């Protein structure tokens, strides 16, 4: 049985949807054991903070829950703070899961890619 935290996010995933005119977009795909899992993250940045985040995820319950939690954790954070949102941290908050499921935590990868995308655009 999955943890309550996973079930909560799986049943009611947060910040679902695409964003028009996002400041940054990133994609994350699953590791070796779940290569079909994929997340897309969009962020809007205001004064160095993530003002809005949207995400879409295809994958197993852990993938869906992880993306939802990642998006919640990222909201309102500075970019530096948001860069600390790692797979390990998300896994820790989600609670107990089979070890192989770590490969399905695609949300943080997509978020970090979106932040990187934003930063690259800033330097242009």
């Amino acid at each position: 049985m999955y943890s309550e935290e996973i079930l909560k996010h799986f049943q009611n995933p947060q910040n679902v949807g695409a964003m028009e005119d996002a400041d940054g977009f990133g994609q994350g795909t699953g590791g070796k054991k779940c290569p079909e899992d994929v997340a897309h993250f969009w962020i809007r940045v205001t004064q160095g903070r993530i003002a809005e985040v949207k995400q879409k995820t295809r994958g197993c319950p852990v993938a869906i829950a992880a993306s939802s939690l990642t998006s919640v954790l990222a909201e309102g954070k500075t970019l530096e703070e948001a860069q600390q949102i790692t797979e390990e941290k998300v896994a820790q908050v989600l609670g107990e899961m089979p070890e192989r499921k770590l490969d399905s935590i695609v949300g943080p990868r997509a978020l970090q890619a979106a932040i990187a995308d934003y930063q690259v655009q800033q330097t242009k």
Partner: protein
Amino acid sequence: MEDIVYLDNAAATRLDERVLEVMKPYLFDTYAVATSQFGYLPGIEAKDALDAARGRMAAALGATLEEFIFTSGSTESSNLAIKGVAMALGEKKGRHIITTRIEDFAVLYSARALEKQGFQVTYLDVDKLGRVDLDRLRSAITPETILVSVQAANQEIGTLQDVAAIAELCQEHGVLFHTDATHSFPRVPLDVRQVPVDLVTVTAHLIHGPKGVGGLYVRKDTPLGKWMDGGFQEFNLRPGSENIPGAVGFAKAVELATPEETARLQGVRDRLIERLLQVPYSQLNGHPTLRLPHNANISFRFVEGESVLLHLDMRGFAVSTGSACFSRSLEASHVILGIGGNHERAHGSVRFTFGRFNKDEDVGAVAEAITEVIERLREISPLGKDR
């Protein structure tokens, strides 16, 4: 589990009370080990019950009493068939075995175990509906070939093989033929008087019989090594005290799995397939007509099977998926990949298998639930934006 709509009858089935009733006397009253006719009375009675059960099992396959042995289930039966033939003929005749890529694990891993012992194994490809090509099989047979093992029906996608044609081809070439009929017996008839098959794996737990009982049909004079060491039971092929309640229950379960019931299940299956194919971007896995009467397997694009399974579970439906995320082996269904599907198709595959205790109205209920679930998961999926 009474409030659950259970649609995973290819994994396990609910025991039928009528099966339990015939088993009870051999658990509480005549619980003796089967003895010879010169043993004590309860032992003779136990032996008689075992013989009667064996006779009924043999009759269901068109076999004679001496040609059917009881085992602990289909995994053991297939191990005995494949390794037993290898033991008997590996030195004498040759060390080549032919099977398919989409067999169940008992056959597949028995073959792999033999490979480690120096046997050569050919894993035949199947077509996109899951059928073995006879010409391909014919050209795979060599003078070294001792056994062909091709399943009667597939465990996941339900595709039936042309067992009769394969058996005849093997007979022509003087090669033994084993078929794993775990998922088809007795709903898809197989009569060994008509079909020259040498070894047939069957099991009780998928037809509302007890768990832990299976059987192997062994055609008279088929060379078969004793794979497990122990006593002299089951014509000295399968040691261990006989599971007499199990054997009696198995025979009863076979009797109860009538053609009328099979026809009902097929009707239910067809209605479900029709409903599920109305979901956009869905695809039937396996053969549209030559398939198990109680199996529907559909892939839904842009979603993952374990998430489908969990949402359905929350709504009270039990199904199965070929997604790697769900499998203990962490690998995507070798069957869906074997029929030329990609990882995405395996990822989104959902199997529905019906049994005696499913009601006709289960079809509408599960079709409605799955339509909702797929829609919900696609809303949060980044894939298929153009749909």
